[in-house]
């Protein structure tokens, strides 16, 4: 098709003239130039011939009986549609007005009588070049239009697939508000939220470098890893390490993902945050003051595993506090003068809300007011997470995806974790995974995880590390507790924590027995400040254990805890039935 501009094939030329002699001269002349000629004696014949067999170029006498050249030109141009069919008027008209009328009627040029062989040949060649150029441009335009349509269709399909993998998880929770462009995935923005099996939730806000399909492709494994690991109970740090390693491996050099991981614990009313390359997060306190959470890390996919730092900042919060995280589209939202919304304006928007307003709405309204348009038009991703009482979010983790496979019913296993690994590795996801092999326990993952986590935390912090939960009662002590925990973990040696899990079937369901032993010197599980108080965190833990397990026994000065957990078929069936309807 691209040879078209240089093709020398004969042209098909339609001529119309009511003078037989003129027609004969022109026809012969064009034949001699090597073209095919069809001729008509008036405008109507010409239009009919054109309709029947088309033509590359048309030469029309201006004044003809039946239908004159002007009207024929109009019909021929209409029949040609998008195709450029050069139309040249032949005339012995001499006044300028008449010649101009020929062009207004749709003519592209005119030839005056007497015919001049050289001029006719030159004009036909010139118009043929224009015709071929027009055809090439039209073909390219059609090609671009087709490709664009195809691209949009593919994007729509890709988005459907992506939405299935990277669903929005629990972004519909009552304490979350967010704004994301409907096609944000093709801007490279991602926003996921997933309940943790032990309660609370984990949220990932991300912004890939680049746009379009490359950015969307990187988002797929991020979604898989984030949802898969979070719902199995892995901590934010664990998920971050895995994400960083995976992205480092699959993304080309120069491409990475600015991200923030937020781990919200509504029991403890605390937030753990890791910010790698996103704009400062803002924690808006109940009293209207706010603190910023700046990026302290490189984006995901930049550093190798050895140098990657996944430690999360711990923030104590109160119910009513709100965390805002955003991608740089928020700060870079432009007004008509090309200025950006920016950090200062964001803070001014937040300063106005007092103690009752919504931080999310204040920022959205601020952007709208500044840019003069709806944020929908930009790649703006904004998340707001309100800290609430845990009871407000009950039942959220029920929706964790199930495997359809049947699993083992009668088993026993012992897992012991020792020395340095106590500080580096959490055995909880693995232990939960083992328990989740029992179909009847899958709907109970939250409770099982809580049991395992409380037993492990007690064994590690009070048993092995010998920390006192009293410290956590005050804000200063809270910090000291975690600092001391870190310090002691560094030097832990000659210690172990051993889990023995046994599952067996009963008449009405099954029974899981969890025994957790540690190498510590024991702790006073009868001390009211540890066990009975529901203010201390550890105290709450033991209360929970009692509530969830059918029995809780401490032996050997508290170095051995036994929990027996019964589940029933009817309960499981009822809950599964409940989610199906």
């Amino acid at each position, binding site marked *: 098709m691209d040879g078209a501009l240089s093709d020398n094939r004969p042209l098909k030329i339609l001529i119309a003239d009511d003078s037989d002699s*003129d027609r*004969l001269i022109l026809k012969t002349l064009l034949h001699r130039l090597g073209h095919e000629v069809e001729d008509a004696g008036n405008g109507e014949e010409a239009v009919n011939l054109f309709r029947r067999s088309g033509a590359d170029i048309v030469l029309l006498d201006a004044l003809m009986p039946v239908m004159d050249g002007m009207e024929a030109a109009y019909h021929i141009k209409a029949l040609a549609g998008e195709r450029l069919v050069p139309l040249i008027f032949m005339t012995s008209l001499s006044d300028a007005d008449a010649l101009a009328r020929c062009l207004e009627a749709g003519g592209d040029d005119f030839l005056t009588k007497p015919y001049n062989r050289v001029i006719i040949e030159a004009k036909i060649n010139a118009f043929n070049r224009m015709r071929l150029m027009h055809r090439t441009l039209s073909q390219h335009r059609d090609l671009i239009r087709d490709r664009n349509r195809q691209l949009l269709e593919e994007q729509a399909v890709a988005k459907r697939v992506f939405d299935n993998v990277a669903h929005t998880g629990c972004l519909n929770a009552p304490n979350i508000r967010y704004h994301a462009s409907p096609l944000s995935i093709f801007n490279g923005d991602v926003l996921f939220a997933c309940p943790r099996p032990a309660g609370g939730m984990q949220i990932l806000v991300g912004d890939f470098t680049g746009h379009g399909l490359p950015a969307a492709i990187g988002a797929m494994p991020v979604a898989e890893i984030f949802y898969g690991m979070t719902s199995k109970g892995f901590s934010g740090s664990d998920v971050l390490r895995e994400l960083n390693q995976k992205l480092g491996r699959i993304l080309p050099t120069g491409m990475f993902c600015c991200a923030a991981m937020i781990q919200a614990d509504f029991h403890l009313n605390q937030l753990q945050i890791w910010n790698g390359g996103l704009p400062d997060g803002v924690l808006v306190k109940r009293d209207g003051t706010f603190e910023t959470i700046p990026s302290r890390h490189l984006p995901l996919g930049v550093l190798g595993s050895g140098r990657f730092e996944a430690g999360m900042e711990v923030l104590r919060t109160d119910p009513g506090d709100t965390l805002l995280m955003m991608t740089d589209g928020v700060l870079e939202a432009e007004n008509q003068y090309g200025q950006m919304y920016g950090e200062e304006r964001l803070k001014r928007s937040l300063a106005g809300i007092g103690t009752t307003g919504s931080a999310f709405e204040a920022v959205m309204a601020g952007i709208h007011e500044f840019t003069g348009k709806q944020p929908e038009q930009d790649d703006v991703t904004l998340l707001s997470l309100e800290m609430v009482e845990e009871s407000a979010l009950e039942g959220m983790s029920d929706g964790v995806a199930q495997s359809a496979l049947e699993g083992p019913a009668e088993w026993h296993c012992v897992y012991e974790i020792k020395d340095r690994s106590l500080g580096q590795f959490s055995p909880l996801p693995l232990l939960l995974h083992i328990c989740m092999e029992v179909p009847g326990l899958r709907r109970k993952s939250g409770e099982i995880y809580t049991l395992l986590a409380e037993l492990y935390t007690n064994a590690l912090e009070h048993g092995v590390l010998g920390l006192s939960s009293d410290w956590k009662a005050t804000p200063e002590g809270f910090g000291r507790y975690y600092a001391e925990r870190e310090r002691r973990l560094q030097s832990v040696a000659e210690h172990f924590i051993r889990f023995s899990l046994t599952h067996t079937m009963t008449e009405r369901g099954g029974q899981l027995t969890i025994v957790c032993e540690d190498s510590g010197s024991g702790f006073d599980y009868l001390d009211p400040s540890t066990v009975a108080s529901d203010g201390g965190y550890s105290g709450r833990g033991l209360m929970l254990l009692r509530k969830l397990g059918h029995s809780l026994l401490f032996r050997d000065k508290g170095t051995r805890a036994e929990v027996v957990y019964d589940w029933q078929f009817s309960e499981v069936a009822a809950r599964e039935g409940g989610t199906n309807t």
Partner: protein
Amino acid sequence: MTDKPHLDQEALTELQDVMEDEFDILINTYIKDSADRIAHLRSALAQEDADRFSRSAHSFKGSCINIGAPRLGELCSEAEQAGRSNRLGEAAAMVEAIESEFRQVEKTLRRFLE
């Protein structure tokens, strides 16, 4: 009266060159065509149809110019003007002049055919 030549020798030579074997056909066609057009002019005049008169004169003018009969073309052009400005009073004389010039041209052209 015009001082243009009856026939443009140069134009005719070029036509002969272009038309080759078909030159005879062209001349015959022109002669027959012209006779028809003179009849048209007369009929338009009889019906006092100035517009049709003007159009016929215009078409005739075109073929005369192409064939290389400039003086006849000039006469047609004057007739066209007269028709357009509705001066049919002068037109009868013009048609006479056209017809007489055409006979002259025809006679000369036929010599080319021999």
